[in-house]
């Protein structure tokens, strides 16, 4: 029962995955800030770490407050493996920007897709759209700020 591709088949599973990804992204940027080649780049990474901390708080609040007992409908066609950025252990300072961009691109795609799957919860959909926009904005900043 339950196809493997549907491993994010519940509201809670989607939100938990997002929270974990934000946690990981926050840790990544904190570490990246210590390895950055310049102080402006370090500052950018620190700001991004903070943005991911705020995003995590938003997701935890959504999970707590927007769980609508009346419409906890099964979610189909959303799998964590399509969005999870692999571990970045062993990276070198020169790769920080591309690793960060890959992570943000995964998050952007995930939030865009998850927002559609959770369209029956408009508040959640809108929040996920905003998080997708945040990832997109960071992608743009990463293009202008070499790590």
């Amino acid at each position, binding site marked *: 029962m339950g196809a493997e591709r549907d491993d994010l088949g519940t509201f*809670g599973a989607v939100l938990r995955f997002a929270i974990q990804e934000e946690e990981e992204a926050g840790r990544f940027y904190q570490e990246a800030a210590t390895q950055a080649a310049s102080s402006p780049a370090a500052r950018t990474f620190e700001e991004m770490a903070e943005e991911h901390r705020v995003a995590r708080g938003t997701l935890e609040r959504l999970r*707590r407050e927007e769980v609508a007992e009346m*419409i906890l409908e099964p979610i189909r066609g959303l799998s964590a493996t399509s969005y999870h950025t692999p571990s970045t252990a062993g990276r070198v300072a020169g790769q920080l920007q591309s690793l960060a961009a890959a992570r943000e691109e995964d998050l952007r795609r995930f939030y865009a897709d998850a927002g559609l799957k959770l369209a029956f919860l408009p508040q959640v959909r809108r929040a996920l759209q905003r998080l997708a926009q945040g990832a997109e904005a960071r992608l743009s900043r990463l293009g202008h700020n070499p790590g």
Partner: protein
Amino acid sequence: MTVATVQNFVGGEWVDSASTERLDVVNPATAEPIAQVPLSTREEVDRAVRVAQEAFQGWRETPPTARIRYFFRLKELMEANFEELARTLVMEEGKTIDESRGEIRRAIENVEVTTGIPSLMMGYNLEDIAPEIDEECIRQPLGVFCVIPPFNFPTMVPMWFLPYAVACGNTFIIKPSEQVPLSMNKLVHLMDEAGFPPGTVNLVNGARGVAEALMEHPLVKGVSFVGSTAVAKQIYAKAAAHGKRVQCQGGAKNFMVVMPDAVLERTVPALITSVYGCAGERCLSGSVLLAVGEAYEPLRDAFTEAASRLKVGYGLDESSQMGPVVSRRHKERVLSYINKGVEEGARLLLDGRHVEVKDYPGFFVGPTVFDRVNPEMTIARDEIFGPVGSIMRVRDLDEAVEIIHASPYGNAAAVFTSSGQVARRFQYRVQCGNIGINIGIVAPMAFFPFGGFKDSFFGDLHGQGRDAVNFFTERKIVISRWF
């Protein structure tokens, strides 16, 4: 394995029951005991009632604005402990973590509504009802109330009553379901932390004996009950015989009508949630799908396919979409209904009797779908309280309404349609307390009463909202003239 025994909370103190009789509290997914619950004695009930009565006068004299500050604090504590409450609920009741979060959210919403008690509790007045004579209606609290909740919503159901009663100035005793006392125990710990004065909120664990002692106690002013219809009838009669106010929510058999113009891709997920959410252990669960005319075949196929994809598992695994039923005994009851459906000639499209969940030997029943069900079959008449959906083909809306009205229950019914006219006819005609229009779980929000007609409710004032305020207050009329 040694497990802890839950305590009673009386007069602001956590105390062990003197009773030597204990029942196991079993995790429905693992089938292992996780705690024990004492069957408290009649003397312990008497003490709790007397303590609550002693606390009443001081509490009712506390201004409503001060009373609701305890509820503001309680809300914050519930938010801060949200995940722990939800996880406890999964472990004792079996529902999924999402369903548990939904239940805790509902409980918090009731706390939020009661913070409006200074407005909700206001009376009304009129000057000059006769020359220079005025009249006013004042709402006053009555004293000690109690709740006897069911196993399926151990946190939410008590909160349909407790916050309203206490915010209105009454004192309160909870007797949690002996099957699932843990989440309420945690919640009362939070009430203790919120600083409610000793005796305003009390908790006495136990089973039928405690419930009877509460109903018979002369100092108890009212009883709120939610459970099966058979027990609701008994409690309604007994509590009324002892001069109590009483409100009893009973069982249900909820029909979901699907019209040919229903938007099937939105209707099927709503029906799946309704029938299989909380493993069907919900008094608002959809039970019988009445497919009108051409809706039948596409609905049957899409519903069965969606049901077959549900992932059954332990509720703490976030990917689980349906958990176990509450107990071994309840599982046997559900399975006996499935067997009965087969014996009586219904066509079993999806058989949940043999579902297995790796590493969890608990009380799982898989999603089950019956087709070619007729109104005379047992599975179409009785409340199964398990993950069993039945499909019946009907000619038109009139036949669907006839079938709904033939049921002794009147808790909830829903129609799925794109037609405003059909929806309007449905809500106008159907004799049920909660009506869904393209909604499969018609669960009223905290600021509305939780409805129920016929054998689904005994009493006149329901839980939640303004009904609750009326139930927990007496209206006093004052007519005045000054010389």
